[in-house]
């Protein structure tokens, strides 16, 4: 892939022109904003540059150009971007916590559960707040850079949506694995129960009663498991619902890849079209205003005034 760099030649020529221009520029009046009036380049001779009413374009003014203050909404967008980054870090932590909770351990795993809950809540919260702030972004700011704002919104919305989907996927895999694990010991228990039942079937009632107690105990434990599992599932489902809500809000902003909206020339066209439409509307308004009744009335009245004035003068003269 061949390219050619012409910057060196360009800079050389620019410096040469600057050195020719510098001794000719007179006193540095207008030291405010560097507004430069340029004589037409092609016509004027090199030696007769009109004195430019500005300071020498030294490094200070160059800095004043490159370090322009961005508008206020840029701060908002940067904050959202920083939040997204924080959410990413937390998601890495969450993955680790999920893995740890799934490993068989001797404790009852309540610590892990609490950590997972806390992390999930935090991430969901960050995503929700960022989503809300992102939607507010469109209302502030001027009209000129509305396109820039819209595009910044779109890009951040895409990132947010990807993060939400990632979180959802992680949660669902964790949930599935959790269910499989909890069923494991359950299944073994049930089997034992079943076989125990069978072998005891021929025994007398006393044995039956003691078996019943054994069974009741097992039942209670499995009930506990179920209750706990249900709670966990409910929690995960709650965060799923919240995420679904966020995604629905964001989907309006996100671009569908592969469609016409994702084409650069389409986006340029729509800008051009809306500008043109605006111009047409203005022209139409102008025309209707010109044709408007008000103007006609005013003209008629003025003419009548003149006519009456003339009549008055005539009356004076003739009388």
């Amino acid at each position, binding site marked *: 892939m061949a*390219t050619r760099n012409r910057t060196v*030649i360009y800079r050389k020529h620019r410096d040469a022109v600057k050195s020719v221009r510098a001794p000719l520029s007179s006193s540095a009046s207008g030291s405010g904003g560097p507004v430069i009036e340029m004589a037409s380049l092609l016509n004027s001779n090199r030696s007769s540059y009109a004195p430019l009413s500005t300071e020498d374009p030294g490094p200070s003014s160059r800095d004043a150009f*490159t*370090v322009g203050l961005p508008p206020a909404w840029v701060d908002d967008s940067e904050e959202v971007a920083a939040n997204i980054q924080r959410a990413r870090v937390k998601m890495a932590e969450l993955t680790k916590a999920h893995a740890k909770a799934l490993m068989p351990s001797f404790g009852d795993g309540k610590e892990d559960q609490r950590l997972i809950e806390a992390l999930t809540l935090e991430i969901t919260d960050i995503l929700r707040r960022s989503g809300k702030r992102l939607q507010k972004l469109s209302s502030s700011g001027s009209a000129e850079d509305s396109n820039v704002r819209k595009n910044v919104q779109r890009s951040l919305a895409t990132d947010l949506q990807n993060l939400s989907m990632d979180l959802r996927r992680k949660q669902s895999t964790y949930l599935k694995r959790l269910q499989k694990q909890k069923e494991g010991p359950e299944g073994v228990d049930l089997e034992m129960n079943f076989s125990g039942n069978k072998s005891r079937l021929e025994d007398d009632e006393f044995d039956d009663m003691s078996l019943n107690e054994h069974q009741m105990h097992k039942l209670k434990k499995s009930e506990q498991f179920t209750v706990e599992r249900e709670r966990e599932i409910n929690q995960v489902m709650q965060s799923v619902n919240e995420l679904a809500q966020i995604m629905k809000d964001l989907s309006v902003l996100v671009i569908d890849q*592969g469609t016409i909206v994702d084409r650069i020339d389409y986006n340029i066209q729509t800008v051009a079209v809306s500008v043109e439409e605006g111009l047409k509307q203005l022209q139409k308004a102008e025309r209707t205003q010109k044709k408007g009744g008000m103007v006609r009335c005013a003209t008629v009245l003025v003419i009548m005034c003149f006519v009456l004035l003339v009549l008055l003068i005539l009356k004076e003269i003739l009388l």
Partner: protein
Amino acid sequence: MVLVSAVRDYINRMLQDISGMKVLILDSQTVSIVSVAYSQSELLQKEVFLVELVDSISKSKESMSHLKAIFFLRPTSENIHHLRRQLASPRFGEYHLFFSNMLKDTQIHILADSDEHEVVQQVQEFYADFVASDPFHFSLNVPSNHLYMLPAVVDPSNLQNFCDRVVDGIAAIFLALKRRPFIRYQRTSDIAKRIAQETTKLMYQQESGLFDFRRTDISPLLLIIDRRDDPVTPLLNQWTYQAMVHELIGIQDNKVDLRSIGKIPKDQQEVVLSSEQDAFFKANMYENFGDIGLNIKRLVDEFQQIAKSNQKIQTIEDMAKFVDNYPEYKKMHGNVSKHVTLVTEMSKIVEEHKLMLVSQTEQDLACNGGQVAAFEAVTNLLNNESISDIDCLRLVMLYALRYEKESPVQLMQLFNKLASRSPKYKPGLVQFLLKQAGVDKRTGDLYGNRDLLNIARNMARGLKGVENVYTQHQPLLFQTMESITKGRLRDVDYPYIGNHFQQGSRLQEVVIFIVGGTTYEESRSVALQNASNSGIRFILGGSVVLNSKRFLKDLEEAQRIARSSPAVV
């Protein structure tokens, strides 16, 4: 793939070293070049938050100095003029200038003069000067394409502009591929010769340093041929997906505009047909209409399955799965609607204009002999009221191209009938076409009736029968590619320029440029040839991409200018 990835690489390199919020400024030509290779969402990922045209941006007054501006323009004098105005009162913080072709020294000087504020950080030439619409097919979107049909004396300055644009585009292709080719051209075409000579001068003399790549492997071949050597292909009706959409509706830079066709729902009014982004299109773009119908039905069935399962949401898990899969589902829904809409609209047009009937005769005229039968068929269709005027014109043209010398009386009869049918299309156009592309002007063996081998081949094909009557036509390009593969391209017909040539060594890469425009039927031929692994990779390019309407418009324009110009005999 190689063309699109070249353009993408260039754009990536433009954007990668510049940090912070950026604005990309293009001109009307580079917009097409960038849009087919890069999507808006990818630009957003690279922090390019605004894209504007250079002529509209000079009118705006607001300063956005927190943005860094990247200009990607063609090095034309209007663009330099716009840039001068911009640099005189800069709106952005930094200016990075990239040009899609070689700058003249005077242009650099003009820019440097206007850069009083020294906002320009770099000036580079990145040679992405072509629209890479398909993996092995590019176009240059030249505005006044009809100029190639006129002799140079008619409008020398505009013709020079045309040639310059073509030479620039070809040079950009080879710079992007980093090769320097040896060049052959079609002997009977003046404009092909001129372009070949100017390209050689550029690559071997003027900018020989830039093109000197010091590669030891075999140089590729650049073959420049004229559209008028095969005037039949653009006139035919097409029945393979991509070619058919372009013929009936029109594809521009991989976009299809359905607004003029009929009542279309709002989100399908403009659609994108790109083999890179649409897997279904990639698999079906060269299939014929019947197979497409079947495949679309299969696609719709698949989609309906998924839609039904999405409706049965009973448990929470189902809901979770639905939310997970929703983006995929939405994308698939959009894709399916797009293809269904396209095929529906095309079926309507086929039905309305009786195109199956017309196309059968067209294919016979293009591929099979039998003058008497052909005359009868064309006369019947001319008498048929439901055939549109433009289709009648095409039929007469195809007949005239084939049976130009046989039975001139019957040819005159057809002309008269055409004139009485449609006063708008004067038969003069057919005669103009014959003057431009008649049998005396053509080099290639268009109908396979010049040399014995081709006649024998045609007879064999006639005896064997054809799979599909509507797609039996093979463009002349196919034969040309076969000759190149076998090393049998005649020097007499396609001479070399200068003495930069390699005899005897096997070719690996060939770029064929058709002055006057390519067609999607030919790009399909090239793609199928490349897929057949013959050892040679072919790339096809043209000044525009033609369909029959566009070709006829070029003919009309050229005829109008030729009539009004005193220089033409």
